[in-house]
């Protein structure tokens, strides 16, 4: 029963507020009337009767407010009232409100957008069952770098470990696949059986590889991706029909993997790894490895376990040397996929956090200015019975309204921002397709808005309700002491803002200067006007296939030269800056008298005779490649038409290799053995020296390189480079036609070299553009902040300035006074900022190139820029102060 009464009261209080209030008003008034009547009956004059009655009642408004506060549901009411009141207040100052909402929306939106990238790439779990149990396993090289695994080493890890339920190796490459609707260049992975078990994945159709399927000489079976099954195979439910021709062998399809599974990224076909037998060398690193931890085994335990096996291999192997593993390491797969992206992303997140702080500082200053104007209003409300708590809640409510509206706009902006970010992001950013505004990101935005609201609300409430509120009424809303206090707080905020902005802009400056230094690096080759065509012939182990490949490539290059507008055509095993890069290995300085009989014998010779060993990248190219890319010949000759597959094999080496391996000698005419790279043990005679090229990145020194003649030692997969004055599209179309005539089963892919080249700069550009943008916005906000605080200070001091002028101060004195005050604040901010930047820029050291993290030019330039901008922001109010008319100013009060 009582519960029912209560519920009825609550509903009545909430929904019939007006009636309940009118009722209360009437009741209190009739009470007052009765008191008056009572007093008159007691013999008072009407005037006295009324006065005494009012004193006894204690104010109709206060009584009503006391009843209201005790009512059920009063909490809802007062929050609702606060909201309405807050909205009215925000609407009353539409300009300021718009600026505050925009500023906060910018900060929250930018933070949300960056967080969505951080979340998608770094935080979001991989889409596999118990994904945190999946580990990546690496060998550790003698230089301490993680590397891929050699077959015998992987076998030892697999057979001897006690930490993994399943461990599997894999590698992947692009090759030509025919047998489906049309031949395609497709990413194919070679995996050992158990690969899918590591991920806890079952084929959605058909079956997984069995142990027997992975044995040497087993039947050839393939698993296909969902996308490939749908688009290229036409989604057949009967998998026995389609057969795929891959690298000269025919595969039957045994299973289709679920759409969600794509590992390694972009792979469409998974084939057993060891159908043609395993490698025997412990120093040829051909496979990556993943494993699923046994229950109860930690990553650290697995690491110890694998590391112990690795060190045993290191100690006992006969293949000692730089290429033998030194150790091994186990990392969570997610970490290993995103490791390189981590630092740049965290730096971005930090930068955007700084931007948000600067934005909040601006809003805090605006709120502070408003609060001092509102001192009178607060005093009135306090006099009418609003407690301090109620007033604080009012400020919090307003801050929440502001932040949530701004957060809403920010999230809308972030949707658009994320699309931009994804478009701008470097293609090699892992898990790029994972980036979106999703529930966790929205939660983050909400949390961020709440944090901002709490911070701003608590700050303004603490500032506005400190001291005796009612004094505001007495002073006519012009509390001099209070406003001086808030001016000081305003200056502290501005100094902090300047400090944070300086750190951010210094960071942007350092990264920007690094980018400029990188762009100034001469790559050693021409980038423009080159069309690159990737072609992959079947990957066959048969040595005889080399002869036919050479003929095919010579033929292809000859035909491509006929395309109108094409000046030079060449081919290379790997294009500079392309994914993957050149293989790197040891070679031996030797002669015809001392030829190894096998690759193993060669490796043994190199290990025994270190003084005759060299290390270089290995590239197969044609003479046209050097001409197309404009790689200069320093001495000797390029390859020419006399270098045929059966004539003595020749090599061209890069300048840095000549300098490094043949100091004070002429390498031309020397002979080397590099057959461990392509299993061709014919001796190479050095015939020329060419300029150094940046093959991997502009910010990495050129690596010593040996070029062999692609027409003598053809690779199955090459990139054809065509230097052409003609339009890219017509060259592409003509080249496609020519290739189809030569072999209809060979699908090409085309890119311009400048696309490949600029893609290599995208990670750096991405960071510079974003952090630069944040820096510029922060600079604008900080400038606006300085201007706001100074203009407000001048405005509040108009009277004082008038007095000073009336007492004979020159306008120059006034200018100096205002500027001096402003600059003191700014310089304190700058000093703190420089100190902070010196500490913080160390963390981005590894992202810099050609500048130190304390680069004086950047620090000096940014300081000048910031002080200049702040000075301009001070100058405008200072000039206004200078022009104050003493008479008007004195009357101003």
């Amino acid at each position, binding site marked *: *029963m*009582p519960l*029912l*009464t*209560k519920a009825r*009261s*609550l509903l009545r209080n909430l929904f019939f507020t007006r009636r309940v209030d009118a*009722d*209360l008003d*009437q*009741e*209190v008034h*009739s*009470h007052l*009337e*009765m*008191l008056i*009547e*009572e007093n008159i009956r007691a013999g008072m004059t009407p005037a006295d009767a009324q006065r005494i009655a009012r004193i*006894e*009642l*204690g104010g109709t408004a*206060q*009584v009503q407010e*006391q*009843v209201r*506060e*005790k*009512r*059920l549901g009063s909490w809802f009411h007062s929050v609702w009232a606060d909201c309405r009141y807050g909205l009215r207040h925000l609407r009353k100052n539409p300009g300021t409100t718009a600026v505050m909402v925009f500023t906060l929306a910018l900060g929250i939106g930018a933070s949300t957008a960056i967080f969505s990238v951080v979340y998608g790439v770094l935080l979001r779990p991989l889409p596999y069952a118990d994904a945190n149990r999946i580990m990546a396993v690496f060998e550790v090289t003698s230089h301490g770098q993680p590397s891929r695994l050699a077959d015998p080493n992987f076998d030892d890890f697999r057979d001897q470990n006690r930490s993994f339920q399943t461990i599997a190796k894999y590698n992947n490459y692009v090759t030509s696949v025919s047998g489906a609707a049309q031949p395609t260049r497709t990413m194919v992975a070679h995996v050992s059986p158990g690969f899918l078990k590591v991920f806890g994945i079952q084929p959605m159709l058909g079956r997984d590889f069995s142990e027997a399927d992975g044995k040497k000489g087993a039947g050839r079976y393939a698993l296909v991706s969902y996308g490939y099954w749908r688009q290229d195979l036409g989604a057949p439910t009967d998998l026995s029909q389609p057969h795929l021709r891959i690298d000269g062998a025919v595969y039957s399809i045994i299973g289709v993997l679920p759409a969600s599974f794509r590992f390694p990224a972009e792979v469409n076909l998974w084939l057993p790894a060891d159908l043609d037998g395993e490698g025997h060398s412990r120093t040829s690193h051909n496979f990556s490895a993943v494993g699923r931890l046994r229950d109860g085994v930690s990553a650290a335990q697995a690491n110890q376990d694998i590391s112990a096996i690795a060190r045993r291999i290191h100690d006992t192997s006969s293949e000692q040397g730089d290429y033998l593993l030194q150790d091994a390491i186990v990392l969570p797969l997610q970490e290993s996929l995103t490791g390189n992206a981590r630092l740049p992303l965290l730096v971005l997140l930090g930068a955007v956090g700084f931007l948000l702080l600067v934005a909040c500082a601006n809003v805090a200053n605006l709120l502070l200015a408003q609060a001092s104007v509102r001192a009178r209003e607060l005093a009135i409300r306090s006099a009418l019975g609003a407690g301090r708590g109620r007033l604080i809640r009012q400020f919090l409510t307003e801050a929440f309204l502001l932040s949530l509206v701004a957060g809403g706009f920010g999230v809308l902006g972030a949707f658009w921002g994320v699309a931009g970010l994804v478009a701008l992001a470097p293609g090699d950013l892992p898990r790029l397709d994972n980036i979106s505004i999703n529930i966790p990101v929205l939660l983050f935005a909400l949390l961020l808005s709440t944090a901002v609201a709490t911070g701003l609300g608590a700050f303004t409430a603490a500032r506005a309700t400190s001291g005796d509120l009612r004094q505001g009424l007495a002073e006519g809303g012009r509390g001099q002491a209070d406003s001086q206090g808030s001016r000081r707080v305003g200056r502290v905020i501005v100094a902090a803002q300047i400090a944070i902005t300086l750190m951010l802009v210094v960071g942007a400056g350092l990264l920007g200067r690094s980018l400029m230094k990188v762009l100034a690096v001469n790559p050693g080759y021409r980038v423009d006007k080159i069309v690159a065509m990737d072609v992959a012939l079947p990957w066959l182990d048969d040595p005889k296939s080399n002869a036919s490949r050479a003929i095919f490539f010579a033929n292809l290059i000859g035909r491509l030269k006929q395309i109108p507008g094409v000046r030079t055509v060449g081919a290379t095993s790997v294009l500079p800056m392309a994914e993957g890069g050149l293989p790197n290995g040891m070679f031996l300085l030797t002669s015809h008298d001392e030829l190894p009989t096998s690759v193993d014998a060669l490796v043994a010779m190199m290990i025994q005779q270190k003084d005759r060993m060299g290390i270089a990248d290995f590239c197969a190219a044609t003479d046209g490649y050097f001409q197309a890319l404009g790689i200069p010949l320093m001495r000797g000759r390029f390859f020419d038409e006399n270098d045929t597959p059966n004539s003595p094999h020749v090599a061209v080496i890069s300048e840095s290799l000549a300098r490094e391996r043949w100091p004070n000698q002429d390498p031309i005419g020397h002979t080397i053995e590099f057959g461990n790279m392509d299993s061709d043990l014919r001796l190479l005679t050095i015939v020329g020296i060419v300029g150094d090229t940046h093959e991997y990145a502009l910010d990495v020194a050129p690596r010593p390189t040996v070029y062999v003649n692609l027409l003598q030692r053809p690779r199955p997969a090459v990139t054809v480079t065509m230097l052409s004055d003609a339009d890219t599209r017509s060259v592409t179309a003509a080249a496609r036609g020519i290739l189809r005539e030569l072999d209809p089963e060979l699908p090409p892919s085309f890119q311009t070299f400048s696309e490949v080249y600029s893609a290599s700069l995208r990670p750096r550009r991405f960071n510079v553009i974003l952090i630069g943008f944040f820096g510029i916005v922060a600079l604008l906000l900080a400038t606006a902040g300085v201007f706001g605080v100074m203009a407000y200070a001048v405005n509040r001091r108009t009277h004082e300035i008038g007095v000073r002028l009336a007492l004979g101060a020159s306008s120059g004195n006034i200018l100096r006074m205002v500027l001096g005050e402003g600059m003191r604040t700014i310089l304190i901010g700058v000093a703190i900022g420089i100190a902070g930047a010196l500490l913080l820029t160390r963390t981005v050291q590894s992202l810099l190139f050609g500048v130190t993290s304390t680069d004086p030019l950047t620090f000096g330039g940014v300081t000048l820029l910031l002080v200049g901008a702040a000075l301009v922001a001070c100058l405008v109010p200072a000039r206004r102060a200078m022009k104050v008319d003493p008479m008007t100013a004195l009357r101003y009060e």
Partner: protein
Amino acid sequence: MSPEQTSLLQGTLDLLILKSLRAGEMHGLGVSRRIEQLTGGTFVVKPGSLFPALHRMEEEGWITAFWGESENNRRAKYYRLSKAGEKQLEAETERWSRISLAIGQALEAS
């Protein structure tokens, strides 16, 4: 509802209001004067305490309110004890006697 939580003074005010209304329906001023009379002028209840208490007790369901005519033909809001209110009065009275007895004993002990 939960008398143990209410402060002694508030409990006292509730008890006095309930006790006043036991005599019959009354408006706010009447309740106030009745309390004065009942306590021999010891308790003077200000409207600032009376009205919040009356409204709270109405929400609790101990008293019901209605508009009526005062002695001088003025519209006034009257309060009447409900069934729940009578029970509450009994409980409060019982509690109060216990407390006053205990306090009395405590003070008499030397």
